[in-house]
């Protein structure tokens, strides 16, 4: 069917607008990247917009040479990895019985899950409870409160419900138990939903800010986001250890820009690998069940 002239204009206008929006979405990111790769004088003279001016890696060298930043980086990386694996395990273990009609308390527990999802506990009693179980100033607070999320649980349960009963029944006749069933058959067939939830949990664990801010005092356990927040707000923290000569080719602003990009790199690296999964996962989640 031939599109009429007005149809074509309509399509072109929408395409043009969306391309414009995409560019606008990327501009702040590009601007920070250029700042981080420009010299101090170029930044001070208001020359840097979308492309680096007087290109230099000096800010990056300074940032990459900081041991305290790497310490936070590896702390965050390891809590994210361990936390994500634990979260997937916890979620799968809980979602599996909830997907089974023979699990008798299933509907009651599902109601509790939905209540937990809708009603957020007031922050102060939450703080007191978490402190009460010994997670105050304890690095475990970076992992434990994040290993189960009701919304993700519902996504996984919905996914498990779609498995054919025949496969399970055949395996059960052979004497396979529920645990083996889950780990040997169900989970290997659930790669799409596992990848999606790994992304959801991973992003939350990597980006967490409120928990460490509320619960951690010991600077040794400061994760990346808290460290970056200090870099953004406190000049003395970001410049500590920097030589105080005027010949430096970086300043607080280019350093901040480099730190911000430093913390984004892992997300940008992982993103393309997981992208094909998460839309599918979000679709599963949007189907109410």
């Amino acid at each position, binding site marked *: 069917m031939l599109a009429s002239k007005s149809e074509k204009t309509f*399509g072109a206008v929408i395409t043009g607008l*969306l391309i414009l929006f995409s560019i606008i979405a990327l501009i702040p990111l590009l601007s920070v990247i250029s700042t981080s790769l420009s010299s101090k004088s170029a930044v001070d003279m208001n020359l840097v917009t*979308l492309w680096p001016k007087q290109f230099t890696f000096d800010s990056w060298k300074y940032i990459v040479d900081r041991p305290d930043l790497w310490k936070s980086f590896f702390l965050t990386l390891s809590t994210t990895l361990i936390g994500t694996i634990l979260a997937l395990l916890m979620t799968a273990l809980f979602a599996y019985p*909830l997907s089974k009609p023979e699990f008798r308390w299933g509907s009651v527990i599902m109601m509790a899950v939905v209540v937990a999802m809708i009603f957020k506990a007031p922050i102060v009693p939450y703080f007191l409870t978490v402190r009460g179980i010994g997670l105050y100033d304890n690095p475990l607070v970076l992992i434990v409160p994040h290993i189960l999320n009701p919304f993700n649980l519902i996504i996984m349960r919905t996914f498990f419900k779609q498995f054919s009963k025949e496969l399970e029944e055949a395996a059960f006749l052979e004497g396979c138990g529920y645990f083996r069933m889950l780990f040997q058959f169900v989970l290997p067939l659930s790669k799409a939903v596992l990848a999606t939830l790994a992304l959801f949990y991973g992003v939350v664990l990597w980006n967490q800010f409120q928990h460490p801010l*509320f619960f951690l005092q010991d600077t040794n356990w400061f994760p990346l986001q808290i460290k970056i927040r200090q870099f953004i707000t406190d000049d003395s923290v970001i410049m500590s250890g920097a030589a105080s000569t005027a010949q430096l080719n970086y300043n607080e602003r280019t350093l901040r820009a480099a730190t911000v990009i430093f913390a984004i790199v892992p997300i940008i690296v992982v993103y393309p690998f997981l992208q094909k999964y998460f839309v599918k996962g979000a679709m599963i989640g949007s189907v109410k069940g």
Partner: protein
Amino acid sequence: MKSIASHQMKVYWPLYVMAIPGMIFLIVFKFIPLAGAVIAFKDYSVFRGFIDSPWVGFKHFETLLQHPDFLRVFSNTLLLGLFKLTIVFPVPVLLALMINEIRKSALKKGIQTALYIPHFLSWVIVGGILFDFFSLSGMFNIILGWFGTEPVLAMQESAYFRPIYVLASIWKDAGWGTVVYMAAISAIDPQLYESAMIDGASRFRQIRHITFPILLPTVLVLFLLDIGNFLDLGFDQVYNLLTPMTYNVGDILDTYVFRTGIQQGQYSFATAVGLFQSVIGFIMVYTFNKLSNKISDGGLW
């Protein structure tokens, strides 16, 4: 009856064992804190705990309503919440309708990738990006300079806080918000469009009479959920965009609870603030659900 129960346990015990860690988690991290909200009606003492602290009735709520800070914080929260519902909420719907009109799949994917990325950055990072963008020698002021306008430190100006808050919300999450709508759109039967095209409906009319009406129930459900979290603006977001200069317009219930409750240790008072927030959210959902049940049958319950 008893034999059925014991049979149930004999065969299905692994299912019950599997559910134990998850149930413990929900109880500890969700339900105990939820029940702990009673301390809003008590004078909480660290030594006595949630249960044994003495009851004081509505004392903390009365203090709250008379507190001069509270009115300012509450109106800030109300205003930002209102902006979020009226300005931020519709953007993903419009974006999804637009993205759906793109026929070239490579282009579509590229646009979606660009629009999704900000969602995966933390508010600390977004704050960092914005502070850089709006700094004196940042891009914002360079562009203002082209038009001969004097540079402003936008992040430190009260007048700019609300627009920046709204734009930052859209920038970070509007793209991601389209995912659910795109899923709903992809479930639409293509035959509807084919017959509409045979009848000579233009693409714009197809959006108006097919895509949008089918999308509407999803929009309504998400809107109701948003109304429930109306006063819940996200601690990370506001905290990371706030400067001492913008406190008068940017201090909200979440940041207020953090200061009074966590930092100053007024546990019962801060819980009362939090509870007030939840109750308003609940009343809003309840009212709007009734309303939407009346208008269409697209309510939450």
